[in-house]
């Protein structure tokens, strides 16, 4: 099928196109130079903004912890019931939406690719089953490898090559895309009721430190030539004063960086940027962290913006979830995933009138606005930890308009208002910058060569918004922009028009992207390994790998490793 998007204001930062009026031609699901105008279906985009399809680098939308979150929160679902239509399936929304609703809602906002960031390899089959049922989107998952016994064992021995082989094996076994590290060392310690409190604490039984795990895996990541960097959730996350740990972490990773390329992505950085000694004296550490990131090139991060709403927190960081339980006394879930990771879930209500929550809200925006290079940071809420992804248009408004930020800040707790740096920050993002932090930068950081741009041969994923950059001053009329980004005028997925004026036109399935890492010598699944499975896991080796037939549409990426 041929499609021609005519006369839109195109923003394509990867190809340096900044609001030029031009046509985009699509043929057979790819962007092409041109199509024959008579035969092609035409979309009149005059007066509209054309972006590449949105890419979300970090959003918990599938897997064991998401599903447990769903089971745990019937009261969250009854608020937001979605009925079926002739095209879409029924479901429920709000903080942990059902799979179909997740797909539709992302698509309505113009998103086409999302990354599910925490998949315990043991739960990989379940995760892929849910991703298969998440329509409209291309997706990938990051297996949690930071506390996997095999990794810890080889890092302890100092054998990075063997460690790299196991990581490569795990990528194709769990059909994963990047190395996810959560509270390195802390999760293994949590199995014994303990945690690590700095990057140089020792992990029980293995005797190595979080520093060794992070740097080791960052080196492994390089040896394997993985497209994304390590995806890191820092130690001491969510605790006052943790910005010092975050700075230590970033300094430790300097040793891995040999060129100007990033070596680590620190995720939901807001939760890792608290200064102060306790909850009462909590203040923002954003300034120090932003200063460091501005001066170095080896780190990228995403915001982890807090939204003032009722949401559900879920993370592999079991000890942190326990801390939240002690603070709130709310219903909670905590578990230990054998040999791999842990997990926890607890509902959370972020309130404007809470000094802590309001400061958190401010920190995320400070981080984003104080880091000068938009290619270094991306917009997320760490869905659903900071708030549901459906709040993205609100964050866009805060980013593009000082007026919008100050309007919200004025409704916050007085103490948080006094501490906030936001009144002193003038920066307002342009649409070009916005296209970087919501799609282009994320695609680049993920190494997705055919996503996040509209150059020839890119996947024909396009979002068209009802916003005229010539007529609307987005910084002043932020409400118009917010509305435009809530309901895309058109979303095009693989060359098909799937959304028009905020309504789903057709139900399409997306691909599951995973890495097929080719190492010179492969991991031998020998008797020793099978014995380990017998001893340490509740599943036999034969039942462990995610086989190809588990993926509805499989999209393997061949990677040639250096080992």
């Amino acid at each position: 099928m041929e499609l021609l998007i005519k006369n839109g204001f195109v923003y394509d930062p990867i190809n340096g196109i900044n609001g030029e009026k031009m046509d985009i031609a699509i043929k057979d699901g790819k962007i092409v130079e041109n199509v024959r105008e008579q035969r092609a279906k035409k979309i009149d985009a005059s007066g509209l903004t054309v972006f590449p399809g949105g890419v979300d680098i970090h959003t918990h939308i599938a897997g064991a912890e998401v599903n447990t979150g769903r089971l745990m929160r019937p009261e969250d679902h009854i608020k937001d019931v979605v009925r079926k239509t002739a095209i879409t399936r029924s479901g429920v929304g709000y903080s942990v939406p059902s799979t179909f609703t997740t797909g539709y809602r992302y698509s309505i906002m113009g998103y086409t690719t999302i990354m599910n960031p925490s998949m315990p390899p043991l739960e990989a089959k379940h995760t892929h089953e849910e991703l298969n049922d998440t329509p409209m989107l291309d997706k990938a998952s990051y297996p949690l490898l930071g506390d996997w016994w095999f990794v810890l064992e080889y890092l302890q021995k100092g054998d990075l090559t063997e460690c790299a082989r196991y990581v490569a094996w795990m990528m194709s076994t769990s059909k994963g895309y990047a190395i996810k590290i959560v509270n390195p060392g802390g999760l293994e310690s949590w199995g014994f009721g303990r945690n690590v409190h700095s990057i140089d604490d020792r992990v029980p039984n293995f005797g190595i430190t979080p520093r060794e795990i992070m740097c080791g895996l960052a080196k492994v990541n390089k040896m394997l030539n993985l497209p994304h960097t390590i995806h890191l959730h820092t130690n001491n996350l969510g605790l006052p004063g943790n910005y010092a740990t975050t700075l230590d972490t970033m300094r430790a990773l300097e040793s891995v960086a040999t060129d100007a390329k990033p070596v680590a992505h620190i995720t939901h950085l807001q939760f890792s940027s608290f200064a102060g000694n306790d909850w009462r004296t909590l203040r923002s550490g954003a300034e120090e962290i932003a200063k460091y990131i501005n001066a170095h090139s080896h780190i990228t991060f995403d915001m982890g913006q807090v939204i003032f709403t009722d949401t559900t927190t879920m993370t592999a960081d079991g000890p942190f979830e326990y801390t939240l339980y002690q603070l709130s006394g709310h219903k909670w879930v905590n578990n230990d995933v054998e040999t791999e990771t842990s997990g926890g879930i607890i509902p959370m209500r972020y309130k404007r009138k809470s000094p802590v929550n309001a400061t958190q809200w401010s920190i995320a925006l400070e981080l984003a606005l104080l880091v000068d290079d938009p290619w270094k940071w991306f917009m997320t809420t760490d869905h659903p930890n900071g708030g549901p992804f459906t709040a993205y248009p609100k964050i866009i408004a805060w980013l593009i308009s000082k007026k919008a930020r100050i309007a919200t800040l004025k409704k916050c707790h007085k103490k948080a208002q006094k501490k906030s740096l936001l009144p002193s920050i003038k920066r307002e993002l342009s649409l070009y910058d916005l296209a970087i932090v919501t799609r282009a930068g994320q695609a680049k950081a993920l190494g997705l060569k055919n996503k996040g741009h509209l150059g020839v041969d890119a996947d024909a994923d396009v979002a068209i918004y009802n916003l005229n950059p010539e007529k609307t001053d987005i910084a002043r009329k932020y409400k118009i922009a917010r509305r435009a980004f809530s309901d895309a005028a058109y979303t095009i997925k693989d060359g098909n028009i799937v959304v028009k004026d905020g309504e789903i036109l057709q139900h399409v399935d997306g691909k599951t992207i995973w890495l097929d890492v080719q190492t010179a010598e492969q991991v031998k699944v020998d008797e020793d390994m099978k014995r380990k499975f017998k001893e340490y896991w509740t599943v036999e080796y034969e039942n462990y790998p995610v086989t190809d037939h588990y993926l509805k549409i499989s999209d393997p990426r061949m990677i040639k490793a250096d080992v």
Partner: protein
Amino acid sequence: MITLTPLRRFQFPVMAECINPDVFQGKSVAEIAALEAWEGNRKKKLGDLFKIKEDPAETPNITLTGDASEVRRVGIGMKNGEIVVNGNVGMHLGEKMSGGKITVQGDADGWAGSGMKGGLIEILGNAGDYLGSPYRGSSVGMSKGTIIVHGDVGSDVAVFMKGGVIKVHGSAGPFLGFRMRSGTVHIEKNIGNRAGACMTGGKIVVSGFMKELIPTFTIDGVKAKVKIEEKEKVSGPFYVFLGDLAENGSGKIFVSKVNNPHLGQYEKFL
């Protein structure tokens, strides 16, 4: 006054949130008939489901006659006005209402007055489970207002209650006042097991028989009278139990001494 009469026996639950004096306010019969309601999975108009008649009497604002036992969510979130149901009514009656009055001549189904914030619900028959309790999973309980039930009530009454009064002239099922924080519940007859489990505050008054007390309560004394609300006291004497100690709670359960001689064993701890 608007009178609604079901046109037939409903085979499926009817979700009629629009039956609410605030919604009907200032609308003509034709406009009311055009309001939206769901019967099972079909969207219908109120006029397709009910015969709607207007008469000049001022109060009550809405009367529901006939068999409305499948009609759910009547009076959700109402702020003022009066609804009278001349028969039975379905689930979620007066959920989250903050003012006004609902009277039910027959029985009400589960979740009547769930998460109520004010006003009065009077049920002359029996009430179902979860009277005044929040929806499953939620911890937002009844905070204000009054519920009076002349018959019996089911299980899980006054869960997460944090204010207001519930008075039951009949008996109550198990798990009364689970995780209750404040407010008062008075049961004139008997109650089921595990009353007050995990309660941290509030009052449960039992004038009838209570088979057993959960072990995390301790006896606090014997009292001759207990206050239910302004100008209303019931006479005992009552054993006063304090708990739930497993939650560091300071809730109180008052149990009639006369009707519960088997609880006399606690007196030796006084």
